[in-house]
């Protein structure tokens, strides 16, 4: 049987990749994808923990996270489209109308 800490390491690595991507990439779509990676890193850890502890709470939270992530992606893309109509860019370094 695969030991628990393998899953936890996988989860944390996926989360870290997502976080790294969010902080270094400058394209909004890639940033959205990075957030999805972070959430899925969390999901892996939660399912593993939930299975090893024989406790359902973790899996319930995973369902909620999947649902909310879908809503979040819908809203995020809608905002990007609204922005794209006014200024044809998806590059955050060019979206700097406000400063200070």
């Amino acid at each position, binding site marked *: 049987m695969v030991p628990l800490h393998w899953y936890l390491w996988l989860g944390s690595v996926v*989360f870290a990749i997502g976080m790294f991507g969010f902080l270094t990439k400058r394209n909004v779509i890639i940033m959205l994808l990075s957030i999805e990676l*972070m959430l899925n890193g969390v999901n892996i850890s939660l399912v593993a923990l939930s299975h090893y502890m024989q*406790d359902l709470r*973790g899996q319930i939270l995973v369902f909620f996270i999947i649902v909310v992530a879908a809503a979040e992606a819908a*809203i995020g893309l809608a905002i990007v489209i609204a*922005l794209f109509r006014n200024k044809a860019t998806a590059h955050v370094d060019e979206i700097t109308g406000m400063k200070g």
Partner: protein
Amino acid sequence: MEINIQPLVPEIIMAVLALLLLLLELFVRRKETVGLLCIASVTVAAYYMPQSFGKAFGGMFISDGYSVFFKFLFFINLILTVLLSIRYIVIERVNHGEYYALMMLSTLGMMIMASAGDLIVLYLGLELMALSTYILAGFIRHDIRSNEAALKYFLLGAFSSAILLYGITMIYGRTGTTGIALIGAALAEGTVDPVLLLSVTALLVALGFKIALAPFHMWAPDAYEGAPTSVTAFMSVGPKAAGFAALGRVFLTGFGPLTGEWSVILIVLSVLTMAVGNILAIQQQNIKRMLAYSSVAHAGYAVIGVIAAGAEGLSSMMNYLFIYALMNIGAFAVVITLRSEGFQGESLHDYKGLSRTHPVAAAVMLVFMFSLTGIPPTAGFIGKFYIFKAAVAAGYAWLAVVAVVFSVISAFFYLRVVMYMYMHEPEGEPLTLSLSPAIGLALLITTVMVLIVGIYPSPFLAFARIAAG
């Protein structure tokens, strides 16, 4: 198994009425009616609030004095911002009915957050609140600044909720539960280890993003400046108060045994927040941006109440947020009246000579600026006084001194607005204020309440103290 839904009745009413409003909006031609229906729906939910005390779903949802206090705060926030919006969204040419439904759904999310007895419920409430607010921030679709505000708010909000989830995962793995009270019980007997500290930090960072504590405040000035002003008023009060409600519940109940560890981090963040908010506000020329930094600074003051802990600290924090809601929405109401067709009215220079052209508006703004500074006899003084009193009583006298020093600095930029209004001659074309009965009512309520709380605070203090238990 019998399920007791009594504690959820106000939330259920809010959810059902918000969705009904969304449907009704299709058939109602005059969108002002939708706004009024929104206020009526909130009143119905508030009516059922006193009967809602209790726990539901095995302690996952708690309706107690603490949550009811915050829910009334959210209702006041919603009603006042709807009053501000009715005329304003016509001027901005975004007079759509779903605006009001989104505000109700966001408020519903805040209510769930305040009542969360479990981290899963907390997460759901937080997301409902945040997702609705992202849309509201970008509601002026044809304005690039509004798009930009929504995008920045969304990206950092989604990032912070991923961090929150990772913190929840670690605490779940460590204690085997997500119930806030159960976590507190499990931590009381265990030892402190790095995983625990990491999860506490993750939750602190995530909630710090929501209440805009420095250094997690970067989104706030841009989101507040670009969003429609009525939404800025809404989101500078509601989500912040909801974040504080969650912070108080999670850290004092769940992480109570670790108070020594997290209070150190929170003290550093509090001082940093007050410094960043007050000092960066000085150089702002846009009043919305100035008020955004001011709201960052106010989060720094209110956090002192959480650091002081106990019933005294919590009640001073709740009292502060109540007063902050009144004075901040009031200040934004004045900013909104300056906006008219083809005139932004967001620059500080637009306030020059306001006392000559519009003496009443200038006087009202004067009250709010004094209150935000913390000058008696306004409510802002009472709020700060009790926060500092709680800090001194908890043995953080030096923190209170630091906070006083920063409020003195804050006088510079608040009173500069007053100076522009009273000591400068009007320049350029004469201003026309866009007034309506609704915004007049909102201004009347906030001004009168700021003065009443400032002069006779005891009933409000007693209310907060009973609510904090």
